[in-house]
């Protein structure tokens, strides 16, 4: 049998249910490997001892009817975990220990999952390379000094380095799909309202959505089934009939209509992305899908819209960090001075930049010109998708306009960093489900992903198309464990 840490979630569950592997053996394997993988810098907080203890307890009284029986799982450090430090990658929350649990993580523990630890991410999920984290860069297991994408960079790196069988991230503008694409893994952003936002450190509330990240499509379907739930504690949680996504998973996508939006052929897009996309179209045809050209005319307005809406919501959400109720406090001459010093010392550069942009676009005299304008354009972007879905069942695009870049390469130019999310942002603005699956490599052998976008609440079709194409693509990460040498 191959090593425990390299198994997929599905294989690991099977082995545990057949008593070939115990939960404790699995936990030990992941902990051992993490100890040898510190150089990746995936973990912000380790929960190893507790994980080993809980896995033993599971083995003493196993319940194999659970969906994640005794499975050790590490999660992005944006999910509040009761009694376990939760930082959101920020200095301002460096000492924050929640007294409650996020609904999404609670759903995982209820099904038998066991917390391995908290994974690094961009500060408050603001970033596309994990370089804005207070806890330092994360290494992409694909090659040294390469970014793992962001903001769920610790999650994508941990997954690709076999430090966790599956993980969860959050996606506000591409933060699950882009890091998945950069690390040769699978990442799914569900429809807005599918997974509860309760207990997730808020960034942009009308866009934030949690989702599974995994080594293959089947694993994402298993984890989605666990984390997706209606939750009264989230006012935008939607009560709809959720599928047993994994049992309904099928490779039969014959006759499904897949749209190819011409506007995603952007200026300056590298040839290899164009080639990958064409290859993807051929794979989809091989799987029996019908390819239809479509138009999403407002695509090029999505990023500018996002960079008004997201910072505006962030500036409101981050107003709570005032040095009074929790987190860092710096000393000041008076109350206002204390606020200003706390926030200046507690927030990193990118977060300050976005809070400033958000405050500006919401400030008196500018609200109509920026925020209201952006909300109107957001409507047009959503209508583009509504119209497209009269003709097609799903949409196929590249996940990112390039492969992973070097650490430091884009960190001084915010706009070029923002362009990373050009293909993922429209999906958040329209609240749709989208998945990134690995589909090939560039000239450096760095992974490239394809994105499948679905209709609202139609995660099943998205998963089925991905599952079918995954078999034809037959992508395998080739990771040499360079960080252990």
């Amino acid at each position, binding site marked *: 049998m191959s090593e425990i840490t390299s198994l997929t979630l599905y294989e690991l569950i099977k082995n545990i249910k057949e008593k070939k592997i115990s939960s404790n053996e699995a936990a030990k394997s992941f902990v051992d490997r993490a100890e040898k993988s510190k150089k990746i810098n995936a973990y912000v907080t380790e929960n190893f001892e507790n994980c080993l203890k809980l896995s033993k307890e599971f083995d003493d009284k196993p319940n194999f009817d659970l969906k994640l029986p005794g499975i050790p799982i590490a999660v992005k450090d944006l999910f509040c975990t009761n009694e376990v430090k939760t930082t959101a990658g920020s200095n301002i929350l460096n000492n924050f220990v929640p007294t409650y649990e996020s609904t999404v993580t609670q759903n995982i523990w209820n099904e038998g999952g066991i917390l391995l630890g908290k994974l690094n991410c961009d500060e408050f999920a603001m970033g596309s390379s994990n370089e804005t984290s207070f806890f330092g860069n994360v290494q992409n297991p694909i090659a040294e000094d390469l970014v793992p994408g962001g903001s769920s960079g610790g999650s994508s790196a941990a997954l690709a380095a076999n430090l966790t069988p599956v993980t969860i991230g959050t996606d506000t503008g591409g933060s699950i799909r882009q890091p998945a694409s950069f690390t040769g893994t699978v990442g799914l952003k569900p429809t807005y309202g599918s997974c509860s936002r309760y207990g997730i450190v808020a960034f942009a509330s009308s866009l934030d959505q949690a989702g599974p990240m995994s080594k293959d499509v089947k694993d994402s379907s298993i984890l989605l089934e666990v984390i997706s739930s209606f939750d009264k504690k989230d006012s*935008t949680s939607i009560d709809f009939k959720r599928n047993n996504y994994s049992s309904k998973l099928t490779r039969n996508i014959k006759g499904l209509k897949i749209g190819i939006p011409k506007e995603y052929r952007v200026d300056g897009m590298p040839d290899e992305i164009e080639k990958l996309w064409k290859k993807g179209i051929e794979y989809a045809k091989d799987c029996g899908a019908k390819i239809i050209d479509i138009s999403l005319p407002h695509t090029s307005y999505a990023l*500018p819209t996002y960079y008004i809406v997201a910072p505006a919501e962030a500036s409101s959400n981050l107003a709570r960090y005032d040095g*009074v109720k*929790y987190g860092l*406090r710096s000393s000041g001459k008076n*109350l206002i001075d204390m606020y200003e010093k706390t926030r200046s010392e507690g927030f990193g550069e990118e977060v300050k930049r976005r*809070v*400033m942009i958000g405050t500006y676009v919401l400030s008196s005299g500018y609200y109509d010109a*920026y925020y209201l304008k952006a909300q109107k354009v957001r409507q047009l972007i959503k209508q583009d998708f509504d119209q497209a879905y009269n003709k097609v069942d799903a949409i196929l695009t590249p996940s990112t306009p390039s492969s992973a870049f070097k650490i430091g390469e884009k960190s001084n130019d915010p706009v070029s960093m923002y362009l990373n999310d050009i293909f993922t942002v429209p999906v958040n603005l329209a*609240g749709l489900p989208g998945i990134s699956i690995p589909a090939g490599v560039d000239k450096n052998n760095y992974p490239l992903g394809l994105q499948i976008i679905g209709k609202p609440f139609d995660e099943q079709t998205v998963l089925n198309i991905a599952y079918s194409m995954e078999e034809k693509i037959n992508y395998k990460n080739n990771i040499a464990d360079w960080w252990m040498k």
Partner: protein
Amino acid sequence: MTIDLKTVKHISKLARISLDEKKAEKLATDMNSIFEFIEKLNELNTDNVEPLTSIAETTLRFRDDKITSENIREKILKNSPEKNDDFFVVPKVVE
């Protein structure tokens, strides 16, 4: 349009983030390049478009007016950087 240093300092006051001169200058540069990129939206006529405020097309739910969490004062105060038994403590605000 350009965002000058004075505006940046005003915004930093509104956002309650103290900035030194050097940081304010850097932010002015960054914000100008970001807003140059955002200005693209002005190409579009949106006079007759309804703003999209929420993607979840639901009306907000009502809940029963019942207390669901009691005696959590300790939990709420637990992470406070400065507190006494019952309250958050802040620098003095009244003379």
